[in-house]
């Protein structure tokens, strides 16, 4: 993802092009004929006013719902009282400032550390147990040459991605839960007491399995696309040199996947603190908070449930800041390994 995608330097457009916008639309590949002086921004504003107007609704919504709340994070440095004023936003101006008190509270809060621990354990588990599966599945699908079989298998594997977490959790509950089909069958054979859904010690494996069921099939798309881009003559040349099926996979296919794998790993690590939210919120009652509390659900619990907005905002803020650091760090690491990562150097 390059942050400056798809444009040439603006300032060099010829004045003549203003009257004939077709030239202004010429793609990068077509050489510009008259490289003359700079086009004044007034003229460009006039020329592009329709385009700018078109982006305004999206900008407005993002400013309102993504940038304004960013400022709202100041409540993390306050003892925010929502009733200090008639409106939640103006109440910020009437609440008292407490500096970093909310953040020092975090250090002494065992529940916060439980959430941190659960988040990290779940991230590592997902990295080890989830991440390789789409790659393996993509290799499997890619080795099938009948187009019909491929299409059907892909359609089936993509399907769960479009189901809501409510549905996925419910499906699991009906199959693995205390009243579910496995428990019922076991009961009929005389072995009772099977309930995976309320088992706190197995919970982390359960949620990983749910993620795999829901999204592993969807994850293969990117890898399949990368595999389709591998030139066939590489395989042919390798075969000529006597490389068998497995050696070709090792020396041709996997190197072709390397950049994609690196990119997805960086994205995953950057998102390490967001291991999933809905999934945990939906199941925390069943297994108890000790096993299911992650940072996101903790923020929800403290803030929305108990109304301790300042403390919850402080936890959310810390999580966000660490998240950004993780993205930047992971990307840096990808560069060190010679991969492109999310954005270029």
């Amino acid at each position, binding site marked *: 993802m390059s942050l400056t995608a*798809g*444009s040439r330097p603006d300032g060099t457009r010829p004045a003549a092009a203003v009257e004939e916008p077709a030239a*202004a*639309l010429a793609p990068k590949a077509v050489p510009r004929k008259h490289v003359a002086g700079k086009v004044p921004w007034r003229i460009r504003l006039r020329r592009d006013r*329709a*385009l*700018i107007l*078109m*982006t305004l609704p*999206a*900008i407005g*919504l993002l*400013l309102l*719902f993504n940038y304004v*709340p*960013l400022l*709202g*994070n100041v409540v993390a440095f306050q003892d925010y009282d929502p009733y200090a004023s008639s409106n*939640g*936003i103006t109440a910020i101006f009437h609440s008292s400032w407490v500096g970093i008190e909310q953040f020092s509270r975090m250090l002494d809060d065992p529940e916060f550390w439980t959430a941190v621990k659960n988040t990290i354990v779940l991230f590592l588990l997902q990295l080890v147990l989830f991440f390789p599966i789409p790659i393996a599945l993509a290799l*499997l699908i890619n080795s*099938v*040459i009948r*187009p*019909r*079989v491929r*299409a059907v298998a892909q*359609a*089936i594997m*993509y*399907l769960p991605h*479009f*189901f*809501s977490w*409510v*549905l996925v959790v419910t499906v699991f*509950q*009906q199959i693995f839960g205390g*009243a*579910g089909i496995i428990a019922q069958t076991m009961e*009929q054979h005389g072995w009772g007491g099977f309930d995976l859904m309320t088992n706190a010690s197995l919970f982390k494996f359960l949620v990983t399995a749910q993620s795999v*069921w829901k999204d592993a099939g969807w994850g293969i*798309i*990117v890898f399949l*696309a990368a595999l389709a881009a591998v030139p*066939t003559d590489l395989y*042919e040349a390798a*075969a000529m040199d006597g490389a068998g099926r497995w050696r070709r996979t090792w020396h041709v296919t996997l190197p072709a996947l390397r950049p994609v794998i690196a990119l997805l790993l960086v994205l995953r690590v950057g998102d390490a603190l967001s291991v999933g*939210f*809905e999934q945990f*919120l*939906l199941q925390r*009652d069943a297994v108890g908070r000790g096993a299911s509390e992650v940072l*996101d659900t903790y*923020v929800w619990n403290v803030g929305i449930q108990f109304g301790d*907005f300042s403390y919850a*905002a402080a936890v*959310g803020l810390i999580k*966000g800041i660490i998240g*950004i650091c993780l993205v930047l760090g992971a990307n840096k690491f990808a560069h060190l390994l010679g991969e492109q990562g999310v954005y270029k150097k």
Partner: protein
Amino acid sequence: MSLNTQLIRSLQAPPRPAWEEAPSRTGLTVKGGLLVLCCLGVLAPLWIVIVTSLSPKPVIDRAGGLVVVPEGITLVNYTELLGGGQVSRALMVSFGVTLVGTLFSMTVSVLAAYGLSRPGSLGHRVILMTLMATMFFGAGLIPTYLLVQSLGLTDTYLSLILPSAVSVFNILVLRGFFMGISPELTEAARIDGAGDLRILLTIIMPLSRAVLAVISLFYAVGYWSAWFNASIYLTDQQMMPLQNVLIQLVQKHTEAPTGLQQAVRTGELSALGLQMAVMVLALVPVAIASPFVQRHFKKGMLTGAVKG
């Protein structure tokens, strides 16, 4: 060529290149077995849910819960659920929010994507950065919640649509597709006197049907599956969308939807059958829609995820 031979051809594998060795029997068996296993892993739970929702109470009771082999198929669960009451209302809410939300999101996104897709327009790089920056940080739950509350959106359907109406990822996918459309076409239209909006509506959009379908599906699935916003911004039970009703039914151990509890208590209806029927209602729209746009997924995901 008759239709039959055409069909047979389409089922046959394309010719194997000369350098590739013929597959071994064991290799084929293992591969086929794995594929079938993966597909069964997805389909089996759905099969059980659907069959159970279609079974009458005695069959469900005898199976000790979930039914695997269909027997005495009946629509009674569905007719009861859809005959007015909590679930019918929730379905209407979900359909309404999905429809309005998707239309709104698509309008905003397509406009923004086109506005950003013309190379060299004034300020497009700054705007693009402003959009993309939001992909790297979120504002956090609490400030967003406070904002939605102070805007007076709580207990309105707008709170289910506006806060998550724009997906920057989707805009980037659309933009990438629009930029790939041959510039000669838009140039010709411009020389004929068409403005930007006209070019978008008459040239770009008809050529982008595939990606428009995929992105619409993404938005629609997002709205259809959402329950969290409703759970924190809505207090009125009458306004709850289908997913939230499903949570109440299955997670919170309410036996049956309001209005049908009496029928369950007197043994006319099976609570489990009703729950499964609600699940099927939540699942069917996406299961029907997604295969239609499936062949376009790869293109859409690629422009967005890898090339950015």
